[in-house]
């Protein structure tokens, strides 16, 4: 960032910046590698490569040059998931840019979650929604892949659509959930509840300690 700071060893980039006196507004979210708020772009000494990563997960190194990338600008398309067909046609309508993928693999190399991003893009183009959804299930939507993509693909939102198409239209529904909901709506448990809610703590405790644990004692 054009200035050198001295910080104790072993800190993450995020904590090192804070130690040096920065206070984050943008660029810090979950602080545990789950939200993608803390993208950072850096070069390490003696390495020609420009790397990207998460500031909360990457340890600082002596002589590292870096800049915070808290946001990868992109617009999310608006859709009604129940009205969509789970196929490539739908996806192309919202993300026509995916046909421009040149298989350069830059996205995969950028991904802090080590996802097979390029494979996922190709799976989508091959109309294999289920495979794609599974490949990018762990995506934290940091958008670091998109910053490196020569085809200008909006991966985080693209993958969100793919996952929802899969979850909504390709996964089978749980029958037992539907049944239970029906029971509850019909008031099947009401009588038992009113008994239970009138009980004293002692009576409840007795029921509690005597209840059977599934799979036996653990």
């Amino acid at each position, binding site marked *: 960032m054009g200035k050198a700071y001295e*910080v*104790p*060893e*072993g800190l*993450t980039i995020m*904590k090192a910046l*804070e130690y*040096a*006196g*920065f*206070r984050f*507004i943008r660029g810090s*979210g*979950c*602080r*545990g*590698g*789950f*939200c993608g*708020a803390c993208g950072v772009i850096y070069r390490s000494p003696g390495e020609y490569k420009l790397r990207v990563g998460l500031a*909360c997960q*990457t*340890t600082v190194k002596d002589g590292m040059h870096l800049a915070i990338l808290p946001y990868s600008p992109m617009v*999310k398309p*608006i*859709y009604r*998931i129940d009205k969509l067909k789970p196929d490539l046609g739908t996806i192309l309508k919202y993300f026509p840019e995916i046909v421009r993928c040149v298989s350069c693999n830059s996205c995969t190399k950028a991904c802090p979650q080590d996802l097979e991003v390029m494979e996922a893009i190709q799976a989508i183009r091959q109309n294999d929604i289920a495979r794609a959804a599974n490949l990018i*299930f*762990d995506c*934290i*939507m940091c958008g670091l892949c998109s910053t490196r993509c020569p085809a200008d693909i909006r991966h985080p939102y693209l993958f969100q659509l793919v*996952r*929802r*198409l899969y*979850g*909504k239209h390709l*996964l089978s529904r*749980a*029958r*037992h*959930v*539907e*049944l*239970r*909901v029906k029971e*509850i709506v019909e008031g099947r*448990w009401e009588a038992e*509840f009113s008994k*239970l*809610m009138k009980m004293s*703590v002692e009576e*409840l*405790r007795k*029921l*509690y*300690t005597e209840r059977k*644990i*599934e*799979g036996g004692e*653990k």
Partner: protein
Amino acid sequence: MNMEGYSPEMRKLIEIVEETRPERLRRKYRKFSLKERKELVSKWHPDYRSDTKRRLRIGPCRGEIVYSEIADLLEAWPLIEPDSIDLSRIDYDVEILVVGGGGAGAAAALWAYYSGVKPEDILLVTKLRFGDANTVKARTGIQAADRAEDSPILHYLDTMGGGHFVNKPELVKALVSDAPLIIKWLEDLGFIFDKTPSGDMIEYAGGGACRRRLHCARDCTGLELMRVIKDEVINVGIPVLEYSPAIELLTDPETSAVSGAILLNLETEEYLVVCAKVTILATGGCGRLHAVGFPTTNHYGATADGIVLGYRVGAKLRDMDTLQFHPTGAAWPEAIRGELVPEKTRSLGGQLVNIKGEMFVYELEPRDVVASAIIRECAEGRGVITPTGAHGVWLDTPLIEELRGSGTIKKELPALYRMFIRQGIDITEDPILVFPTLHYQNGGIEIDSYGRALAPNGKPIPGLFVAGEVTGGVHGRNRLVGNSLADILVFGRRAGINAAKVAVSISSKPKLSLNHLKAYMEELKRIGIPRTKRAPILLPDYRGEKVLLRSVRVF
């Protein structure tokens, strides 16, 4: 020196653990007697110690005991001077204001919309980005009694027992009866649950539950939840304002009903005025207060703002003298300090070992006992001090592989393995350092089953709904794993639906004032709180000491 992985000094300590491993492999530490447990816990567990808490001197719950860090926030001056705020210029005029962009807030906004409120009449404001929240970090799963072998009744019993039977029954009933409905809703939205090919849920066992009841999305359930409902909020067109925390609620001078909020644009530092017929507080927990100096699993914005705002308009707090400390948070490397090391690591056989390679507790004692034992070891000098000055004891993970065969860790704890291998530590070969970490706010603002905030007299505070981790009563004094994700959606939904009903029933536009604040400030003055103490704190301050000492404020 490479600070990922272990330093040579730490390697030497690991050798000690390795030396005692063969012997430990053959035995278990004895279980403590009830008396020993009690002694240990009351001496070392923050919840049972008296020096961690104090009596509130101000506000609706004056005289009640809460954690000192919470008391400090409640006994503090507001960020604004009421008289310097121009309430005549309204920046946002809406039916429903939702404060907090986590799971509870998003669910509330969506259900208000489903209940007929136009999306543009709802406003969701949040402190960081939409979705930067504790919700996104939840890993294990979400509870709902929807298998034939299970029932809402059993879920009720488990929850009450887990909460030491002080939970509010009407809230527990709401939780367990709505939970299956929530699961169905998530399915409708396209949430990817772990399922069998025929569509049945694969459900897992969780501590304190008598049935397998945890619904999961691999090991990132909260991530999937946040992604899906955030996507839906944007799709239906509900406006979202990021980096704009609420710093004060507003009240109608005539009815005393909550009538909106003052927001702070964190980037421009200008304040914004929101007028709303109904306000839903969903600001989450308090881990970043680092109560009693503990690290935390929580996100950056978990600073109990909602507690402060609600208390100032007269809301009743409950169970704020108990916090959930997870016994095993990572203590090293620094990158993942405080992050969760799941209980499963111990149920698979990982033993807890001190610096001398000795066992000091049976690893499957209840959470509070294990946490207390770890704290004791460190306080009495038998813990390991990391290069960054943190304390910890060893959790002997390689033992799992010896006990259950190699490959067990990668199969049973893939996310944990990934978390450490990224930091240069292979937990199948080396043990890890752990220390208790602040995990969850058990109590909070008391609500009723409609999601309305209650005053100490048990009456609802008009215009104010509350949902999620910021509330109290659902979990009593201790929350079960998987019940929080159910909680935030069940009560987010209820708050949204009922807020919509209330908003429709109010025809006139509410008036705005900060009268409640003026009264509160009188009290602050009376007990002599220094003006430098201010709340809500919005974000923790992690700047280095040297910088703070030399800071010159210009901008």
